[in-house]
């Protein structure tokens, strides 16, 4: 399989590898995929009071395209609002990385990961509000 230069670059020099504390209320965590399918992506976003993603980190178990898709995604979401980040489409990732058809699912997974991370963050803040209301 021939990889594009961009995939190779992200694979060899992955950006924003690492983890945040899952319990931190400012952190949203999205974990998608399954080991049985050969790829698992963990994407974490750090959101400030204005709803802007200040920082992002990832860890990915999967092929080079999966690693590159998640690495690219961490670069793109930084500085975006949650709404803007939720608009990122897998087709944009696939196009930027010139993924071949058999690797499109890697970009789909990346889109799922950011959506899951946003949902996690929102459920945390909503949960906090609920508690505040209940009190």
């Amino acid at each position, binding site marked *: 399989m021939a990889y594009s230069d961009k995939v190779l670059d992200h694979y060899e020099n*992955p950006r924003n590898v690492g983890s945040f504390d899952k319990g931190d209320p400012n952190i949203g965590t999205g*974990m998608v995929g399954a*080991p049985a399918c*050969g790829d*698992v992506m963990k994407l974490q976003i750090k959101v400030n009071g204005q709803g802007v993603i200040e920082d992002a980190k990832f860890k*990915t*178990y999967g*092929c080079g395209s999966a690693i590159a898709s998640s690495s690219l995604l961490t670069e793109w979401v930084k500085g975006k609002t949650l709404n803007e980040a939720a608009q990122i489409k897998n087709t944009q990732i696939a196009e930027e990385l010139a993924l071949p058809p058999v690797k499109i699912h890697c970009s789909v997974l990346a889109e799922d990961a950011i959506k899951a991370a946003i949902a996690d963050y929102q459920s945390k803040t909503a949960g906090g509000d609920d508690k505040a209301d209940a009190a």
Partner: protein
Amino acid sequence: MMKRPIYLDYSATTPVDPRVADKLCSYLTMDGDFGNPASRSHTFGWRAEQAVEAARADVAALIGADPKEIVWTSGATEANNLAIKGAAHFYSKKGKHLITCKTEHKAVLDPCRQLEREGFEVTYLDPESNGLVDLGKLAAAIRPDTILVSIMHVNNEIGVIQDVAAIGTLCREKGVLFHSDAAQSAGKVPIDVNGMNIDLLSLSAHKIYGPKGIGALYVRRKPRVRIEAQIHGGGHERGMRSGTLATHQCVGMGEAYRIAREEMATEGERIRVLRDRLFGALKEMPEVYVNGDLDHRVPGNLNISFNFVEGESLIMALKDIAVSSGSACTSASLEPSYVLRALGRNDELAHSSIRFTIGRFTTTEEIDFTARLVREKVNKLRELSPLWEMFQEGVDLSKVQWAAH
């Protein structure tokens, strides 16, 4: 100076030995013996025939057969097709049941599937978790209408050696034909078709430093084993396989087999030392698993799973070495190796397997480079792996609810 990438995929194919190439090349041009071995009316044909027959004798000698029992084919795939379909078609009046194993090569499994479409019945045995076939289970699967058992000698992915002598004895007792695919074993493990009671044996040249495009099928004459030809057109090879013989290919295979017969013992030992050196360096890492039995295994094979690292990304990281992965990521849904799955390996381990196969031209320097590279890259990918992180945190991955896609 080390050439890169380093070739460690000798089970996929081997380079032609220079001695083989030299000899083979003298059967092509006007200056050489280019004749058609089937031409009876002139010296060009006679000389080619002589060369083909000498090569046939060298092939027969490696497996303890009579040269008359060797049928040239285009390779082991054709030999497997000819053996399985040929025997099934010839003996179909006696019975329509065959037995094979789930870890066989596709060149055995696919002909079996074809026979199923034609109305035959096939039992696919599960191997034990070490890759070996249990004799008791094989015996229990044999029925009155069983005509053929096909069990490979050495597995292409995990390199395990089946006890073909015991299987041969069992089949002989039960009056069932025994076919074995020896593409990965010929020239690496001693073979004696009589001592092992093998009736049909598939052979390849390019797995043992001969050219691609040539192989052979051993067909027992005493007691006589009959097969129906699958290719018709002139009745070459005593009617079992028509088509003009490729003299240079036959000569190449013969020379490769002659060299293998002479050097197998010393070469096997040298390769085993290299394999053990590589394994010794890799097994120091945590969560490393050998796939298949380590004792009943060809010297050159090391199939290892690096838990929590995905195989294709590892292969990508190992671009300075040529190896194969058990995970074939070719479609939207990843397909882990069916061989590893048959051993009961879970998906993670099946996805993270790498097959290193060492051969005649592998050096100690190359092995040491490989060991260093693999350790470095596995560690790097584990730093990137959420599964490794969870494992470190003590999470039981088998209990996680994954969002499968």
